[in-house]
């Protein structure tokens, strides 16, 4: 369908205040936090499930592709309109619909910003656990699409562990309810397979999330190392000792320097690695557990340990970690974030290989990662205007994916496959595995209306 006609029809369907179609407007939605760019034909900003449903039905009936989008913080090109069509931006559906403390649930629209929900719940003494680093900007709908993680997922699990159901708009505009506030509804775990499907199966217009009372005590410590190997070994040693803290985060020297230069928070710029370890739970026994962790750090020649004395100090430690991507972003015009994940015992070995890859391609790589989960985030720094450098970046990124796959790991822990890693899917999935996933796609979206060209590579036809 021609663009003008599409816009006109959409204006009629949901009102022109909810439709954007000028070139300038479209340009604002042609990118996310990855390097990939592609324009939708037009943008709609619905305010209700009914409007989403109308738009999707219209698109489906006319063979137009649809992509759902939140704040555009996606790191793998998942929210880019590869084949044009309509981008449904859900940021106006940003209401917390129901706080149900008695049942420990909250019902939200997809456009609610993650941190807004957390701040809202904190006033009532409750927590929604997932805490992606982009929580200040990212939407819950986006978190659900990507199955986002975050530091506290080490203990509390990722987004899908906290999504119990919701409302879906299917490929033809039909609206269905899946899961619910109660656990164990009979049937397949549709929420389980939907979360992390990167907008390829449907649009969740309402989500039911689990909330929990906040922990009695929290202890946050920063452990500074002179060697990155010893930092990595410490992580493995803590887990192997049977301690699962709430978080076990790590930053390398390049990141530490960047964070310090950006925020000036007193980090030693010559340190090789910093671990941020947080414990939470009951206060009883926490002191002893802290000491056990500190003993392990000492065995691995920790240089300095800083234990946060109060909330302000804790916030300061976390501000550095959560702002790390931003700080590293100041070093060069562009960065590419890798998201490979390995069994946590393979962390030191993988890290060494990542460093070697940086050297081989002559590219600076900053490492910030969820060490306790074995989830690396090497940030490859470059300038996209330099064609040769860009080529080396892609080669290095691919090599890192391969290293992670070879280590018995996977190519994405929490940022998604999107477009960026779609060619890597064959590193970890057989054609039978992919065919099985393709069946799920077709069951949900038989005509391929939603987010084409993402997650699943085209299967090679076998005779």
């Amino acid at each position, binding site marked *: 369908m021609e663009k003008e006609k599409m816009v006109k029809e959409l204006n009629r369907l949901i009102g022109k205040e909810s439709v954007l179609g000028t070139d300038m407007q479209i340009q604002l939605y042609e990118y996310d936090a990855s390097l990939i760019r592609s324009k939708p034909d037009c943008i709609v900003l619905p305010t209700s499930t009914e409007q989403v449903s109308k738009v999707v039905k219209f698109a489906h009936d006319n063979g137009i592709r649809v992509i759902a989008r939140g704040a555009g913080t996606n790191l793998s090109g998942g929210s880019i309109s590869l084949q044009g069509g309509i981008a449904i931006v859900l940021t106006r559906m940003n209401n917390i619909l129901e706080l149900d403390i*008695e*049942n*420990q649930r909250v019902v939200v629209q997809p456009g609610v910003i993650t941190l807004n929900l957390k701040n809202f719940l904190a006033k009532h003494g409750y927590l929604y656990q997932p805490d992606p680093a982009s929580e200040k900007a990212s939407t819950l709908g986006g978190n659900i699409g990507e*199955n986002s993680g975050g530091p506290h997922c080490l203990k509390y*699990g990722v987004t*899908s*562990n906290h999504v119990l159901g919701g409302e879906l708009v299917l490929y033809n505009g039909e609206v*269905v*309810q*899946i899961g*619910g*506030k*109660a*656990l*164990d*509804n*009979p*049937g*397949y*775990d*549709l929420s*389980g*397979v939907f979360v992390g499907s990167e907008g390829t199966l449907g649009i969740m217009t309402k989500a039911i999330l689990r909330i929990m*009372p*906040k922990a009695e005590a929290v202890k946050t410590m920063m452990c500074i190392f002179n060697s990155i190997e010893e930092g990595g070994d410490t992580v493995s040693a803590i887990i192997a000792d*049977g*301690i*699962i803290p709430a978080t076990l985060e790590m930053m390398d020297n390049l990141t530490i320097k960047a964070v310090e230069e950006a925020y000036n928070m007193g980090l030693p710029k010559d340190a090789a690695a910093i671990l941020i370890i947080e414990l939470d*739970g*009951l206060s*009883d*026994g926490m002191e*002893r*557990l802290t000491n056990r962790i500190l003993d392990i750090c000492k065995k691995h020649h920790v240089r300095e340990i800083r234990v946060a004395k109060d909330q302000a100090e804790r916030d300061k430690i976390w501000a550095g970690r959560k702002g790390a991507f931003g700080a590293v972003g100041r070093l060069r015009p562009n960065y590419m974030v890798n998201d490979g*994940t*390995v*069994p*946590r*015992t393979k962390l030191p070995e993988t890290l060494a290989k990542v460093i070697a890859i940086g050297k081989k391609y002559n590219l600076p790589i900053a490492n910030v990662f969820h060490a306790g*989960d*074995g989830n690396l985030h090497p940030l490859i720094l470059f300038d996209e205007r330099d064609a040769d450098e860009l080529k080396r970046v892609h080669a290095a990124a691919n090599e890192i994916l391969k290293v992670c796959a070879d280590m018995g*790991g*996977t190519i*994405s*822990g929490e940022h998604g*496959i999107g477009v960026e890693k779609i060619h890597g899917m064959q590193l970890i*999935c*057989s054609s*039978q*595995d*992919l065919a*099985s*996933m393709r*069946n*799920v796609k*077709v*069951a*949900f979206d038989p005509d391929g209306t939603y987010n084409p060209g993402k*997650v*699943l590579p085209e299967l090679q036809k076998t005779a």
Partner: protein
Amino acid sequence: MPQKDQLVSALQKIVGKANVIQGPKKLKDCAVDGLVPKAIVCPKNEKEISKVMAIANANKMTVVPRGSGTKMAAGGIPRKVDLVLSLSKLNRVVDYDKANLSLSVQAGITLAALQKKLGAGRKGNFLPLDPPFTEKATIGGIVATNSSGPKRYIYGTARDMLLGIKAVSPDGDIVSFGGKTMKNVSGYDMTKLMIGTWGGLGIITEITTKLLPLPEASATLLLSFGDLEAAGKYIRKIIHSSLLPSAVELINGAAADRLGEKSKYLLALSLEGVVEAVARQITEISESSKKEGAKGVKVLKGTKEKAFWVRVRDLGSDLAKKYGSPVILKSNFVISKHVELMARCEKITEAAGVRAAFICHAGNGILHTYILDKPGAGAKLKGLIELIGKLTLEAVKDEGNLVVESCPPEMKEKISVWGQPRHDQILMRRLKEKMDPAGILNPGRFVGGI
């Protein structure tokens, strides 16, 4: 379909003569709701399963996967039972990565045998699942039916622990999803999709899961209450506090009696973790519960504690030993309704003149109803059918549903074992049709007759 002997010889070629069972008694033992299979096949590995499935698929023969057979009285009546596929020979630990706290294990191993292996040594680990049939339940069966127990309150269920699944699809493809990393968003979360599908989308042959270190200390508090209202108030206080019990079980008098405890309503709280936290919770809960109306407080530790939780888990399996297919119901509901729903269900069963034991995972919104009378026949059976209808409506009122976990086949013809139909059935049906187009895996046994 080929002749039976042709089929048998084809199967024998794949798994060996001794592993195709045809003895009439054994076949009868593996009947599902009275439907006797043509053969029981016991493959030794995925490759054999793959070949068996390819034959079954090509010939539209239905296959019922089976672990140790603890769930055979559950689910809808199958449309057809051609083959029972036993996973009992797939019972190997594939990869126990102690330092990574992960484990890959084949489906046929029992959870009990596995826990023994994991718990051995100075720093033992465990898989935090505690479903019914403590000794018999296999890993594959637990995952395929998403079976859980009291301690899900703190540890969650299979969906929270599993990292990966290996399965054989209905057409014989061996597929592998997830892996041994703690996080994985590479493609769809097929692991979660496979959990609780009753083998309807593929035969689960291996799982990979997170493990947890064994807790330093544990104790259980048994608080006895004279009325449900006081118990309910106290449960609310506990689950909205920062205290961290690992199980919050509300048990009625009839159930307590079977557990060897005397109490009108018993609240069992399991405490696990570091020594100091367990000790403090014992003191704090003992004191505060008395103030809130608990009439007695008992602390269980060591073997007595372990035995108590085994009895809780196995109340249903003990009934099964007695009656074959006892009536066991599972209601789910929003968590705040723990005592309200139990009170209503108690009243309704009493009015129906039926004796029932109730055990509620009060922090998770799951109520198990164990009918203590023999299901019987005639008017008695009719009464039970009516009762199930009423109890289903009660759970639906509280945003849940009711699943009949066990009942005699003659009853199944007249009830919906999966509760009231739900809005999302359409998606489930499409998934089943896409993934098992010939409809050979456990057809008819799952929700909505898929």
